[in-house]
């Protein structure tokens, strides 16, 4: 099971004096969904291009399923499906014809191809639009067609470059569901790049954070947040509603903040009007709730917050900014 399918070894790409990818070492296991995260221009796309042999690394190697992408790109492309950032289709062809063409390029005999294309279009939810010209497809539909194009060769590795870009929220969650489902059913390894953290967080087993061509952290989201926020790993959010009769809202709030600060384990508290964000060393939400209720204001909600990728991301950027 845990054999690595994608392996980067010291992968570097330079454009003149600019280093787009800097000594990338990473291995991705079979069946994993790996999220490559980073801001625009971090080198995610370049990395993907090198995986497919569409551009040559300055040095270092990429191996996909044990095959060197630079020296034997055709073999790699046989096993790898790639959905580019902004996938394009031949506008005068219908979705069906576009996929038939891809099937032919993959050497699938025509008879088999027709059935397969129909089946795949059904899976990605485009069976209604099968005879519509690809030029008339919406962005979300094109993305689905792109996924179908990837699936036509039964890939063991699926690479998705910014798959959620430009689709509406509902479309995004549907699309990600689809990827998740497919990866589970087909047991294929998925590598997806994104700068959208929330979306990726939902489906990735593991993420790598890519900034300025360097992989600065990798691991599952819990590991990452623990690594980063080791001093106060717990985050509690509380919202209150004040009764006008008790006293001036500001005074009451400040008193309350002082009280909460005295709870053992609380390190830091931020207020946004009537919402508090509390960082603490251990889970003391019960204690905080008691303090708030005793002070005579209403507690509207209290929730323990886990660190999301956003926080991780921001934290890294802060660190990066500081070090520069």
């Amino acid at each position: 099971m845990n054999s690595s399918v994608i392996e980067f070894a010291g992968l570097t790409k330079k454009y003149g004096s600019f280093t787009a990818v800097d000594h990338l070492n990473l291995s991705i296991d079979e069946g994993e969904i790996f999220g490559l995260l980073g801001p625009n221009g971090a080198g995610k796309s370049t990395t993907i291009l090198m995986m497919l042999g569409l551009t040559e690394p300055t040095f270092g190697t990429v191996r996909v399923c044990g095959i060197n992408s630079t020296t034997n790109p055709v073999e790699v492309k046989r096993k790898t499906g790639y959905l580019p950032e902004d996938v394009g289709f031949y506008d005068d062809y219908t979705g069906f014809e576009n996929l038939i063409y891809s099937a032919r390029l993959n050497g699938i005999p025509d008879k088999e191809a027709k059935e397969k294309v129909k089946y795949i279009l059904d899976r990605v939810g485009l069976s209604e639009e099968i005879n519509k010209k690809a030029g008339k497809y919406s962005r979300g539909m094109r993305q689905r067609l792109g996924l179908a194009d990837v699936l036509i060769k039964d890939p063991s590795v699926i690479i998705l470059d910014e798959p959620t870009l430009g689709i509406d929220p509902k479309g995004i969650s549907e699309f990600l569901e689809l990827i998740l489902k497919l990866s589970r059913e087909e047991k294929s390894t998925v590598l997806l790049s994104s700068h959208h953290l929330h979306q990726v967080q939902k489906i990735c087993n593991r993420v790598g954070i890519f900034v300025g061509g360097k992989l600065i952290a990798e691991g599952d989201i819990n590991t990452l947040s623990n690594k980063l926020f080791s001093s106060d790993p717990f985050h509690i959010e509380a919202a209150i509603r004040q009764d006008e009769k008790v006293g001036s809202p500001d005074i009451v709030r400040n008193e309350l903040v002082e009280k909460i600060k005295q709870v053992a384990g609380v390190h830091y508290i931020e207020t946004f009007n009537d919402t508090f964000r509390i960082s603490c060393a251990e889970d003391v939400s019960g204690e905080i709730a008691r303090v708030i209720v005793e002070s005579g204001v209403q507690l509207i909600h209290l929730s323990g917050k886990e660190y999301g990728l956003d926080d991780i991301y921001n934290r890294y950027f802060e660190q990066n900014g500081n070090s520069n």
Partner: protein
Amino acid sequence: METVTDISNRMKRLTTIFNKRILPDIEREQERQKVNRVAPGAFMVMVKKEVSDHIRSWRFIILFSIIILTCLGSVLSALQGFSDAIKASQGDESFFFLRLFTATDGTLPSFFVFVSFLGPLLGISMGFDAINTEENKNTLSRVMSHPIHRDSIINAKFVSALAVLSVMFFLLGFIVMGMGIIAIGIPPTPEEFLRVICFIILTILYVSFWLNLSIFFSVKFRQPATSALSGIAVWLFLTVFYSILVSVVAKAAAPSEMASSQQVMKYQQLVFGMQKILPSEMFSDATTTLLVPTIRTLGPLTAEKMYGTLPSALPLGQSLLIVWPQITGLVAASILCFVLSYISFMKREIRSG
């Protein structure tokens, strides 16, 4: 003495040896090659798609009809004055069938002039958006992610356009010949037929030069409009401005009246060389030589050379020999453009978005 049975036994033994020892090796080798090969026929699949795209595109339909119409018009105008030509000619030696392609009654230019004028436009129009449109529509990176070699794309573009052009020019040539046979009632002699075939092949070579040039521009320029305009600019420069340039240079370099005949000769050769290096000049020289068999040389002719020659037509082999440099030049120019576009396409990084 070996009997027949001996020989057949030996044959059998050899066959078994072949089947047992050699055949498996061959099969294994074939199997291995199959694994390493690109999906069989991926290149042909691409060529087929490109060909059908060309044929179905409005651009090709329009250009094709323009060319068909103008060429038919020119043939009709050639036929107008044909009866006089037949009367004046004596027998087969005059190659009057070839006049279909060269003659005119003055209202319209002749067939081969039209072809040399519209051919480049056709070549440019079929290649100028070959690569950049795919790039702009982001289909290139998607297609490249399928198991195909990168060069198949540019090769398929070239081969498909060339195939369409070839079919079209052969069709055109045969239509003209057919019309000629119907109109004048005399079939072409084999030599005339071969000359027309050579002319068609030459035309395809010439147009494929412009095709390659425009494919090169389509690799270089991201905007199809830029690439089309650069193609047309080169065409205009070569057909109009270059000859002006040559005449300016020629005037500047003209020897004085006192110059020796050798100097005059050298000067003539210089001017001549400057003019003849153009693809369009090469094409028109080659076509006139092929279609007008009485042309005996393309260079300057001195009185000594003319002395004692018989005013007769050359056989096809000799005509081809005269235009061999032109044909080589056209092929070379065409290959040069293709190599340039091939190299710059292979070095290109294919990104989407």
